[in-house]
């Protein structure tokens, strides 16, 4: 019975995306209803499937010929994150998007993007990965340009050009892999690589994958599109882009290919650590000086993605160079847990910025002030999210950062731990600035009439804030074995992925 549900994860958003323009041109409210129902049902399915580990062959074709979808610990975790954030974002957008015309087009593109991301994290086939990657990317280009003003168009064009270069590089890498091994199925590729000789072509493919997925994930040498594209999109879309898109298309795909398909080596691990540390530092120092709220958040996304890549890369490095197994597991756990946490608090922050923009009409921190009494709920959720991202104890960001720091110490890299702590302090500094300028101080004349954001938007904020507060609980023994450890196991298994998948077939 459960396997029947797997295709629905892609089919429901796709069906919704094409059904909405058919019916909701006349009856506007249908777009809201269908959009929210689609994301809600996908969320329910993702939760139902959480414990399922299986390989699903599309069309009943044998895996060596056809396309397979693989559900393992990491995919399941990503699916739940994607579906949760997209449901909250649709909840938020049903009122927020009133200001834009053609709301049904928005939902249509949104659901396409969700379908693409779900596909990316489920697929076990290289070319299928590329197709879903492009579905999600193309929808996101259009969504960045959705406002249709000067800045949006410019940002979307920049994003489109850079991300298309990334996709082309990914396709080139896939072509190399196919040329070298003759397979497109990830498990078969992995097996062929393990048994066959390691040719230089594989290294070239890895370079292409790293650059291609690195562009999608906005890791530092490839980041310039992100601080333009993420703030320009409407707030729910910024939340989706920053919260899940760069993770699903960038980090997930990169780690899946490097760890499970090609197999991590110390060199790849070192590259990941370098990129991660660089993103962490550069992102945060660029963020401190920003006065545009959303732009500041976008730079912090780069920095926080650095944490994730650093954690996962450190784990891979220790694993591949034969270091302490427990430290490696801990580092990967930190990376993945931070990925989950970041998607929650960063989408919450972007939704808060959308809520403030909805009420005050501005994104400039200097023009705000004194919103404390006017928007108590927004203020409370914003404080929670800010403390989370800065890593203040009870909230989720603290735990994942702590794990990464502990892993760095255990693995014998205290300077990485020091760097992590330093970046964490700068993050705290910049969010104190946000709280100080947006909510304290005196209220400017122009903002006297500001009111709290509407009900549905507030509900979305509160849901995410609850997650922010409670996700630290995932680390208590029972929950950790159930939710986080399978994901870590899937990555740490390395090329053992091939056996695991072939056994499930």
């Amino acid at each position, binding site marked *: 019975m459960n396997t029947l549900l797997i295709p629905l994860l892609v089919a429901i958003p796709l069906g919704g995306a094409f059904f909405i323009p058919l019916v909701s041109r006349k009856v506007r409210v249908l777009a809201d209803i269908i959009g929210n129902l689609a994301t809600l049902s996908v969320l329910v399915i993702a939760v139902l499937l959480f414990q399922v580990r299986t390989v699903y062959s599309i069309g009943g074709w044998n895996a060596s010929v056809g396309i397979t979808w693989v559900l393992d610990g990491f995919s399941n975790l990503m699916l739940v994150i994607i579906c949760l954030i997209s449901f909250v974002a649709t909840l938020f957008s049903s009122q927020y998007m009133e200001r834009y015309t053609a709301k049904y087009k928005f939902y249509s593109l949104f659901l396409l993007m969700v379908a693409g991301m779900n596909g990316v994290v489920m697929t076990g086939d290289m070319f299928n990965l590329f197709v879903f990657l492009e579905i999600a990317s193309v929808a996101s280009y259009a969504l960045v340009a959705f406002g249709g003003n000067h800045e949006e168009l410019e940002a979307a064009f920049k994003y489109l050009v850079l991300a298309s270069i990334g996709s082309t590089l990914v396709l080139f890498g896939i072509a190399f892999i196919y040329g070298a091994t003759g397979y497109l199925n990830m498990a078969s590729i992995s097996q062929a690589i393990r048994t066959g000789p390691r040719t230089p072509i594989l290294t070239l493919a890895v370079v292409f994958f790293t650059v291609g997925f690195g562009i999608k994930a906005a890791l530092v040498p490839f980041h310039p599109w992100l601080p333009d594209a993420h703030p320009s999109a409407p707030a729910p879309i910024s939340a989706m882009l920053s919260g899940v898109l760069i993770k699903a298309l960038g980090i997930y795909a990169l780690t899946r290919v490097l760890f499970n398909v090609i197999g991590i080596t110390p060199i790849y691990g070192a590259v990941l650590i370098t990129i991660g540390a660089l993103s962490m530092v550069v992102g945060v120092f660029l963020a401190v000086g920003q006065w*545009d709220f959303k732009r500041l958040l976008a730079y912090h996304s780069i920095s926080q993605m650095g944490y994730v890549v650093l954690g996962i890369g450190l784990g891979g490095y220790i694993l591949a160079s034969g270091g302490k197994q427990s430290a490696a597991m801990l580092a990967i756990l930190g990376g993945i847990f931070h990925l989950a946490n970041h998607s929650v608090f960063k989408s919450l922050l972007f939704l808060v910025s959308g809520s403030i923009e909805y009420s005050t009409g501005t994104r400039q921190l200097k023009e705000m002030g004194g919103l404390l009494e006017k928007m108590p709920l927004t203020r409370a959720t914003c404080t929670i999210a800010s403390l989370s991202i800065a890593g203040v104890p009870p909230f989720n960001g603290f735990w994942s950062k702590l794990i990464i720091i502990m892993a760095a110490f255990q693995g014998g890299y205290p300077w990485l731990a020091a760097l992590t702590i330093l970046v964490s302090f700068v993050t705290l500094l910049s969010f104190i600035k946000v709280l100080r300028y947006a909510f304290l101080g005196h209220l400017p004349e122009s903002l006297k009439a500001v009111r709290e954001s509407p009900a549905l938007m507030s509900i979305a904020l509160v849901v995410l804030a609850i997650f922010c507060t409670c996700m630290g609980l995932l680390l208590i023994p029972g929950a950790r074995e159930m939710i986080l450890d399978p994901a870590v196991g899937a990555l740490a298994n390395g090329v053992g992925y091939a056996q695991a998948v072939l056994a499930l077939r």
Partner: protein
Amino acid sequence: MVYALCFVLFVIGLYCTLTKKNIVKIVIGLTIMEYAVNLFLVLLGYRKDGVAPIVEEGAGPLEFLARSVDPLPQALVVTSIVIGLGVTTLAIALCVRLYEKYGTFDISEIRRLKG
């Protein structure tokens, strides 16, 4: 050798994308890159004196396998062409809109976003 030519074509596209100032030329550069990869994929499946991979009446599967070129890259290329079409269309639509807003195709004059 032939593969190297694909790579050269790819680099030409990349150069065009990264150095040209006119946004339409940038889109052309993207398209050249796409097609370099497509060409590479098709060449991967090529075999000397191969026939088109279409099963005809009376031909057995083994005979077919012995003679035809690899059909899989061709399927991939068709898909990738369709995706390329989508991306190019979106890019062109953005160019049109940008021209409408800014009155120019020059990328160095389209820079409102800073920081």
